[in-house]
């Protein structure tokens, strides 16, 4: 990932005000998921961990009046092209919004607002003794880790990636980790370790390695919560890329409330989606996944 222009002390790249029309250039299946790529002619390159609010330019609001709101997606890959930023998103068709996005074809319009939110922090910002980064992804949640892995590689930061999948059908998005050493866990045992990706993480953090570890995780709430608890127990610095129901993505609706360890709530769209695992009370966010 090219160095991004920083607009905030936390490294976030500011979005152009308003939404704009991008053009879908590819829509490829990947296991049960789809990788949708669009060219954003006028927007900046995002920082890893940031997200976009997406909606189809046409027929957004189908039978029954849904989808109505745009949907939030972490960017999985961003490359400069002659036409602008080529952005890729990993999605699973689980509802009217994701279903409409999943059927978009090349040449169709994709309305986007972004990049939004707080990106990942460099490992040394989280642990001065960091020897590298451990990336832990689950299912469709591997998306932001893909762009982060490339950013880390570009900076020469060693990383190890652990990916977990429910079953063969849900094992998509691998191609986003090309040229990367990845260890896999699957609940059905079809690939790699039979069990949870957090089993692999627990093993990796054993011995003395916890002192120099930094964990970056994104995946389903139960996986994130397991990572959060494990890292808290072993005193390992960790950032979680989280999801919460979101109407706007820029702090207007106050819908994406995530409970803070210190009490009260954060707005995940402007204070996240990447959060320090120690700052949240739980990663089990109510209502996520209705997309």
């Amino acid at each position, binding site marked *: 990932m090219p160095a991004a222009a920083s607009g905030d002390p936390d490294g976030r790249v500011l979005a152009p005000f308003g939404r704009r029309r991008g053009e879908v250039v590819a829509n490829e299946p990947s296991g049960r998921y789809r990788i949708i790529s669009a060219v954003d002619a006028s927007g900046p390159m995002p920082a890893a961990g940031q997200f976009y609010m997406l909606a189809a330019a046409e027929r957004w609001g189908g039978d029954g009046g*849904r989808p109505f709101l745009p949907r939030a997606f972490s960017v999985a890959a961003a490359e400069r092209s002659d036409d602008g930023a080529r952005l890729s998103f990993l999605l699973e068709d689980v509802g009217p919004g994701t279903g409409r996005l999943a059927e978009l074809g090349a040449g169709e319009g994709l309305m986007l607002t972004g990049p939004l939110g707080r990106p990942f922090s460099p490992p040394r910002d989280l642990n001065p003794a960091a020897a590298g980064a451990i990336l832990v992804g689950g299912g469709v949640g591997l998306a932001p880790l893909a762009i982060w892995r490339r950013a880390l590689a570009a900076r020469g930061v060693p990383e190890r990636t652990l990916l977990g999948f429910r079953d063969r059908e849900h094992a998509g998005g691998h191609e986003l980790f090309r040229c990367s050493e990845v260890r896999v866990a699957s609940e059905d045992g079809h690939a790699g370790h039979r069990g949870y990706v957090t089993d692999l993480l627990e093993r990796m953090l054993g011995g003395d390695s916890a002192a120099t570890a930094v964990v970056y995780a994104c995946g389903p709430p139960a996986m994130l919560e397991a990572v959060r608890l494990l890292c808290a127990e072993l005193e390992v610095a960790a950032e979680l890329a989280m999801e919460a129901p979101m109407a706007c993505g820029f702090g207007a609706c106050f819908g994406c409330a995530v409970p803070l360890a210190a009490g009260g709530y954060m707005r995940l769209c402007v204070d996240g989606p990447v959060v320090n695992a120690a700052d949240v009370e739980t990663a089990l966010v109510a*209502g996520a996944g209705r997309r």
Partner: protein
Amino acid sequence: MSTLAGPTTLCGIELAHPIINASGTFDAIAARRAFGDGVLERFPFSAYVSKTITPEPRAGNPPPRLWEEAAGLVNSIGLPNKGLAGFLESDLPVLAALGVPLIVSVMATGAERFAPLVEEVAARSEVAALELNVSCPNVHSGLIVGEEPEETAALMRRLRPLTAKPLIVKLTPNVADPAQIALAAEREGADAVSLINTIKAAPILADGSHWLGAGAGGLSGPAVRTIALRQVSEVAAAVQIPVVGMGGVERGADAAALLAAGATVVAVGTASFRDPLAAARVRSELGRLVPVAGGREQA
């Protein structure tokens, strides 16, 4: 030729155009964190209405807080805010720099807590007007102030003497006849009324469980547009004071319809969630429409 999207006034406040925001649907401070100075350069509203401020800080309701509905959104946010002191200290100076008149939305439970809130906010020179969120219970009677003409009148009698600044009463649509509430507010010195607030709604699932953390919430978006039009037209026909109309505005024609129904100013709310610059588009579309004779009330 005059245009629908030209300068106007609301309670003596000069506005560059008739499109403002609905309270709680655009956080200008958070928007600057996302979009930077572009928010100031292209600020889409001719006045800025703050999120509702309460005397003490509020964390808001437990999640989930949102439910997407057919052409709409049910929310139960629960008025999270920094409280009066936090607002005056950290938010007000930033909002004052937006370059448009500032209308501060306030709410308290009971007239005796409402009064100092109104007094302190109104005393600030940065504040052009106050919007009174009366969707709160009277601690003595238990009645929702904005649902009862007498409760609304009693609250206005307590608050009106505290400031000469315009007081705008935000009306709830959850009554049989909002014009009666508007008339009570007008009689006791309200300078304007604004409507509609969200319509009570509860996403209940097939298994009987409630989706929202708080159980129930309020519906907004295009789904409520014709309800807003009816209520705005009935209220505007009943009162002499200006009406701020809102409810499901997505296009210039929607704003024109509210103006034709008697609104002086139109607020854009839920549409901003879908497109942060929706209000700018509404205004530009409105400017291309030809005004209809007799269709627009002046303040």
